[in-house]
């Protein structure tokens, strides 16, 4: 799983920032990959169990849901890393060519602020779950360790936008969603 930010030939600080983001990408990619694998394996095992021995696997669907949540929210950070988020592009041409770079940079600052707010509120949400000792519905496990992926994902995306605003050369070339 290889990170795909644009090659950087700017300052040493920018290169260090890129290396940090790439390392973060690798860790999150593995986490998200394991989450996605868990979804497929748990659900397939459930179907096979039901058809082969007459009963599905207890908690398989809930396990799959948790795997999907981890994979989806780490995917949010990974999509940020690769410029994969869906956005309305129809109005881009309204900005004069000379102002494009400034608008993009300003946009990254705004994205960072929104992400950090969402991360803060998510952290609050996780803390409430931790304090209440909230447990899962079918699977009797503590839920807050899974919920942590929310503040993590928004913070991780926010940090990326901060780096993109600071070092535009690190910013990825937007990829198209299939």
């Amino acid at each position, binding site marked *: 799983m290889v990170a795909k930010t644009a090659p950087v030939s700017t300052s040493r600080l920018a290169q260090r920032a890129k290396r940090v983001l790439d390392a973060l990408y690798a860790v999150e990619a593995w986490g998200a990959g394991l989450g996605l694998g868990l979804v497929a394996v748990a659900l397939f095992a459930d179907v096979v169990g039901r058809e082969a021995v007459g009963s599905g696997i207890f908690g398989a669907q809930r396990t799959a849901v948790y795997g999907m949540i981890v994979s989806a929210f780490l995917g949010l950070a*990974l999509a940020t890393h690769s410029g994969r988020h869906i956005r309305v592009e129809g109005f881009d041409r309204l900005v004069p060519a000379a102002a494009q770079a400034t608008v993009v940079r300003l946009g990254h600052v705004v994205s960072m602020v929104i992400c950090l707010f969402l991360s803060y509120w998510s952290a609050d*949400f996780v803390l409430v779950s931790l304090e209440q000792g909230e447990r899962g519905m079918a699977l009797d496990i503590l839920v807050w360790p899974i919920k942590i992926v929310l503040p993590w994902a928004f913070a991780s995306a926010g940090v990326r936008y901060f780096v993109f605003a600071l070092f535009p050369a690190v910013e990825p070339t937007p990829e198209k969603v299939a």
Partner: protein
Amino acid sequence: MSGIILTGLILVLIFLRQPIVLIVGAALAYVHVFMTASRPEFLIQDMWIAVDREVLLSIPLFVFAGLIMARGSIAKRLTRIMTSLTGSFPGGLAVATVLSLTAFGAICGASAVTMLAIGTIMYPALLANGYPKSFSLGLLCAGGTLGVIIPPSLLMILYGIMTEVSITKLFLAGWGPGLLLAGLLSIYSVLVNWRIETKPFSGREVAEALKSGIWALLMPVILLGGIYTGWFTVTEAAAVSVVYAIVIEFLVHRELTLRAFGDVVMETIKLQGSLMPLLAIAISLNNILDLEGVPQALVAFMKGYIDSKFSLLVVTNLVLLIAGALMDESSAIIVLAPLLAPLGQSYGFNDVHFGIITIVNLQIGYVAPPVALNLIVAMVAFKEQFGFICRSVIPFVGIMLIGLVITCVFPELSLFLIK
């Protein structure tokens, strides 16, 4: 006043090129803080409740399965079967392309994936056999949209989740309009390419193609047969299709490398990462709209201006066609479906038929500039100018509009399998 500020905030964020997920998130936080007696923490709580559901599991899995098949050799083998069957007729290779897109659409729920999987094989073949470049590009871009109308379909799953219409019924209803469009594209292909030289029919080639592609052909039978017979749910079918695709590509066809598989996993995760948080925030938005009675107010407001089923149909089609041209189709369905579905219901449309009308409309958005995903992907994949691709797709948009009108006028086309 708050409404005006909210609209301004959204426009400024669009102007600043914010991802839709952050625009909706910021707008929703504004609603929580300034327009309702609520707190932004509830936004996160609603998001969690939205994603903590089994019904969403099919989305990443269908995308995953589609990408595995596109990168492996299932698409190639399906194409070989269709080419061997129709290659000897006038315009036969173009018809084989349409049939391949249809068959791949029956195992993959995404438009651009379908276009790429078949297009990378058929585009060079069409050119080599004398088919005009403009026709070939237009056919692939338009035919790729069969991926979202022939079940399984990502857009149908999203529509079902956002409006609580049965996804299985939508999967049944998609067949009529999907096959209609495939038929219209095939007829056009034959008419336009009547004079192109054909190859003689070979029964041996058909037999060999069927032998090499039997596992690929069985996939839609297992997948959709399982859903329609109630053997497994849509979510379970998605998991089965992933495992089936992995087993076939790694153990039977043996043409998918581990590196390519890793790329497919990352592609799936990124797509999921751009879609699922948006879905979660949009569901949270719907909760608050419901709570404030916005859909009901919208229905009441529209009833003051729209006096017939026909008028609603015209307005809905226009709104969806414009939305499809201006924004990504998944986002359009997530944002618009919960507002439009109650309108359709209040004017006496069948829930499933109205859903199919919505999807057929947005399907055209994949080839309608400026935000035409299939055209942009085709530009990169087939290395052609965007303007040329836009021109090449014009006659096909006309065909798709004919399909849309027929789908709107004849509900039975969508509903005959359900009844």
